[in-house]
């Protein structure tokens, strides 16, 4: 029964994350590109700590050595309307 949800935004289970790692994903960035984890509304705030632990278990990489994905703007969802109304 695979219903341990790791990434709530993208509805990803622990088993799905482990499968990707077993098929060769080695970094948080690769997992992000393959599964969209961390790309939903919470931007990885909930899933990141759990995914780091899974990745450490599967690959042996220590948490302190783990490379984290680049944090890009915008940090919060912005409407196109707000951008269009920007002054200056």
């Amino acid at each position: 029964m695979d219903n341990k949800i790791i990434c709530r935004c993208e509805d990803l289970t622990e088993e799905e994350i482990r499968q990707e790692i077993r098929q060769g994903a080695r970094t948080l960035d690769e997992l992000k590109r393959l599964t969209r984890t961390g790309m939903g509304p919470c931007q990885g705030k909930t899933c990141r700590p759990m995914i780091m632990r899974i990745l450490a278990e599967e690959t042996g990489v220590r948490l302190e050595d783990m490379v984290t994905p680049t944090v890009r703007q915008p940090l919060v969802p912005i409407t196109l309307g707000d951008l269009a109304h920007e002054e200056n």
Partner: protein
Amino acid sequence: MEKTEILIIGGGPAGLEAAIHAAGLGAEVTLIERDPFLGGQLTKQTHMFFGSYEQFAGVRGVDIAEKLKKEIEENPKIKVLLNAAVAGIYPDGVVTVSQKNKFLKFKPNRIIVATGAYEKMLPFPNNDLPGICGAGGVQTLMNLYGVLPGQEIVMVGAGNIGLIVSYQLLQAGAKIKAILEASPNIGGYLVHAAKIRRMGVPILTSHSVKEAYGKDFVEGVVVHQLDEKWAPVPGTEERMSCDVLCLAVGLSPLSEILWQAGCEMKWIPELGGHVAVRDEDLLTTVSGLYIAGDVAGVEEASAAMVEGKLAGMAAAESLGYSVEGLLEKKDSARSELAELRAGHSGDKIRGGIDRVERLTRGKVTC
């Protein structure tokens, strides 16, 4: 482009104190808060604080928030933006802010990041059933909106948040079936744990959630015992019915802005995750960027407020502002922090901070 001398990101305990103290030195401050109100976690803390007189001992968190808010509203040097979230920080020092129907750009001289922390989640089967929620969420529902999330609660985590929220749930009339704690020891203050034990709530150490069950919402949880290596002990499974499973399993610092700004970050589990390397003024490795509160390392709100004071004074000082006895005031804030982190319960925090603090003027002895 909006101009401000010091931009403070986050209007919780750390940000409020930072604003008051930076403005107290004469600096012009803009305080940005994502919520429609100031106060952060203080607004749901109905319990009285410990510590000293300076740290509002004996005052309820929610009353501390009111007091600080009033000071801020009365200070013409502080501008407050509510419903405003930082959208990004750019290499030229520009900070973009998304506020209801507005997109603002700031070019501050100094930045204090006081964004706080985010609740951790646990992976176990059926962890997405409605009724499973974080302790912060439960506290928001109950203490801010007056909604009791359920009648029969199983709490996970016997740290201070798990213990305090359990007590508040009891006060609100809910039944706590048990508090589960994976480690062999209660993590929170014994005075909180004793209060709950006196009310007949079992605190099961070395116990964890195996899985939750329920059809459309959580109906119960299977708990199991853990051995000294944190492995489940077969045959110890026990079913507990509940309508809320509340997770109080720690917080991680909300450090996205710091990553984006290019701060040197370190993984310090004792402080909740990735935190920025800082000096004794809470200045990060990025020039002009300070940190305070849980984003600098997850601690109690009391420590967050003192860090806010220190970062606020330091940021204003770096702009050339001063008051009489500033050095002593900063030293006294550092002594307050040392006091809050003293003793056995502060071992982890002190160990974590030792690994991430780069002292430029030698260690403060107090």
